[in-house]
């Protein structure tokens, strides 16, 4: 680690302690000074933050970097670069790789690939071997490698008995959390979009919202039974939000995230049969969008995660029903949230950063390093956002290896100017450095 100094100059610092005009001096990867009007030391790198907001780097706790298995669609390097361009300093990769992350050797290999990447790359481990839903994966071995989130991801743990054991077993692993992609397979089998007026009209078999909320209700009951810790991945249904709200009021250890796309888009996006708008859980109706926004505002939903799911073009250039589910997101999350929620006044910038950085860092057990506050002595995982820059999403210009962005063509406000990982710029003046 070089002792070179980096000075982030001229911005407004926004963290858990509020907002103030301040420069941030970084030395040896740590925050050394936070104050207005700092002068750069000899040989310091000065990053211009004039007109920008300086905050802790974003923490996206649900991404798919497709390594190992589908490196043609994304790999750790390209995914982390895209994440850094989106303002992330930490990501959690989901375990639905091929082979899956149900084994210490595979987890080690991915973490190793992450060491050279533009983000702090963490992984979630499988709950069950092969994500098959029956036998527990070596949760303790994975935990010892730093895994804190356990999930079978795209495959919901349907067996209540297995889920119960996962909740119980992880109580021995402090900071571990059982995360669920809540969709009852029996209710979504053969379905490709939200079951509603649009699916009925388009003739596309549906996935009802109740497939999610019924599993959420069951999982909350199991969390109550076991005292286990539960995190709901990409909450998409209004009824699920109601259940999570009640569970939190009861004092259960339950957290939830949702994606930018579920906060903005509806099932109507599927009307032209474009598989770029296909994901699981599916885009739902406007009432769900409204319920999710309310749940984000009142703290029922703790975090925004993107479920960044790259797919090679040939896998999406097919009929809707034949395409794999998933959308890009890691590079556009802040801009989409800023444009659709902050700029119109629905969410404060502080609330947005809480959902994009501070809270997810805590859920993933990364709060000692990531997610602020911006204080002397903490690691300098920072992001500098220009909240006035306007840009248009062009899939060909994203850093991801894939192009399946649902925001293609959108004109967005707010863009990352600089991202610092342990004090080193991974993005400088809007361009990736590694």
């Amino acid at each position, binding site marked *: 680690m070089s002792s070179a100094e980096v000075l982030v100059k001229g911005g407004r610092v926004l963290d858990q302690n509020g907002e103030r005009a301040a420069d941030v001096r970084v030395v040896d990867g740590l925050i050394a000074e936070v104050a207005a009007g700092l002068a750069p030391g000899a040989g310091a790198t000065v990053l211009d933050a004039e007109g920008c907001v300086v905050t802790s780097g974003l923490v996206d706790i649900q991404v798919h970097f497709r390594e190992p298995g589908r490196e043609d669609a994304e790999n750790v390097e390209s995914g982390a670069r895209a994440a850094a361009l989106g303002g992330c300093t930490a990501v959690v990769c989901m375990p639905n790789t091929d082979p899956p992350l149900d084994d210490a050797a595979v987890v080690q290999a991915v973490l190793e690939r992450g060491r050279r990447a533009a983000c702090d790359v963490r992984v979630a481990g499988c709950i069950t071997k092969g994500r098959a839903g029956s036998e527990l994966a070596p949760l303790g071995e994975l935990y010892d490698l730093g895994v804190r989130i356990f999930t079978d991801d795209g495959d919901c743990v349907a067996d209540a008995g297995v889920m119960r054991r996962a909740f119980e077993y992880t109580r021995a692993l402090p900071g571990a959390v059982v995360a669920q992609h809540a969709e009852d397979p029996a209710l979504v089998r053969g379905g490709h979009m939200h079951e509603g007026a649009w699916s009925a*009209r388009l003739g596309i078999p549906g996935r009802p919202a109740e497939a999610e909320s019924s599993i959420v209700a069951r999982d909350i009951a199991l969390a109550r039974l076991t005292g286990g810790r539960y995190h709901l991945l990409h909450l998409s249904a209004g009824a699920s939000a109601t259940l999570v709200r009640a569970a939190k009021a009861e004092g259960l250890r339950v957290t939830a995230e949702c994606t930018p796309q579920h906060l903005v888009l509806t099932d109507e996006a599927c009307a032209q049969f474009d598989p770029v708008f296909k994901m699981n859980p599916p885009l739902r109706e406007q009432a769900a969008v409204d319920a999710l926004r309310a749940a984000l505002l009142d703290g029922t939903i703790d975090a925004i995660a993107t479920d960044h799911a790259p797919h090679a073009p040939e896998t999406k250039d097919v009929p809707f029903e034949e395409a794999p589910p998933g959308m890009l997101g890691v590079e556009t999350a802040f801009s989409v949230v800023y444009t659709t929620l902050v700029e119109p006044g629905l969410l404060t910038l502080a609330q947005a950063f809480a959902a994009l950085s501070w809270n997810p860092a805590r859920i993933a057990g990364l709060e000692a390093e990531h997610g602020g506050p911006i204080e002397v002595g903490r690691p300098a995982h920072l992001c500098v956002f220009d909240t006035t820059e306007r840009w248009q999403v062009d899939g060909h210009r994203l850093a991801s290896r894939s192009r399946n962005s649902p925001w293609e063509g959108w004109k967005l406000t707010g863009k990352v100017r600089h991202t610092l990982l342990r004090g080193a710029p991974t993005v400088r003046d809007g361009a990736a450095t590694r």
Partner: protein
Amino acid sequence: MKHLCSVDDLGGRAGIEQMLDLTDSFVEIQQRDIPKVPALRGKTVVSLFFEDSTRTRLSFETAAKRLSADTMTFTVGSSSVKKGESLLDTVQTVEAMGVDAIVVRHGAAGAAHRVASWAEASVVNGGDGRHEHPTQALLDAFTLRRHRGPSLDGCRVAIVGDIRNSRVARSNVKLFHELGCDLTLVGPPTLMPERLDGWPVSVSYNIDEVLPDVDVVYLLRIQRERIDQALFPTLREYANRWGLTAARAARMKPDTFVMHPGPMNRGVEIAAEVADSSRSLVTEQVANGVAVRMAVLWSLLGSGGPVV
């Protein structure tokens, strides 16, 4: 009209009526000694059929040939799709051979829309999953108009059976509604669309309440695999509760017509004696299919001049 992927592409009631009027002139051509006109000479129509279909494919090909178009057929059984070629590659391959229209039948909803987004040629939807089958709806309306026409305003139509999984139902509801028909969907709740917001229909689970009042009973094919999906218990129970038995047919008005897109399951959704009765328009539907598809191909590919 560049493509016909959905009834929506026809341009509302006026566009539908125009297409049905045009069909009349092609019926006339079919009655000639040599039922062939040079209207589409030099044009090439390819059928891309990813699902088994005899009548729809033959109907389109016959229509194209009677318009003097060249035809090519691409069916899954004999094609490189079995070797893993994608739909996109298949479309690009046939386009590279120089085609003017692509007729697509595919098991996935929206397949024709996808092909239309990739192709230079005009695309005709020959059935896409559970979504639509617009030429079926046109030929059904044409057939009905010949018996009740030309106006179908106020005509009471019951569509009976597996509405949820039926592309025919989705197209026919749109098209019959545009023409002013009064629509009732009949069948078990498990075979109804999960949501009917915006559908211009009423729904009944009891066929006996509906039959005495309707002018047309349109029956849909019941597939045996729906039993495995727990959508109804047995074919016998279906036939007893929702099938058009001879006894039920006897309680209908004498001038009520019976229609079916085929192929029929005699003894399940329709009794053999009803299918073969004078009320049944089933074979006429097939006959009119060729003329309707001639009209569609002519509309998409023709010069716009007289048909001759």
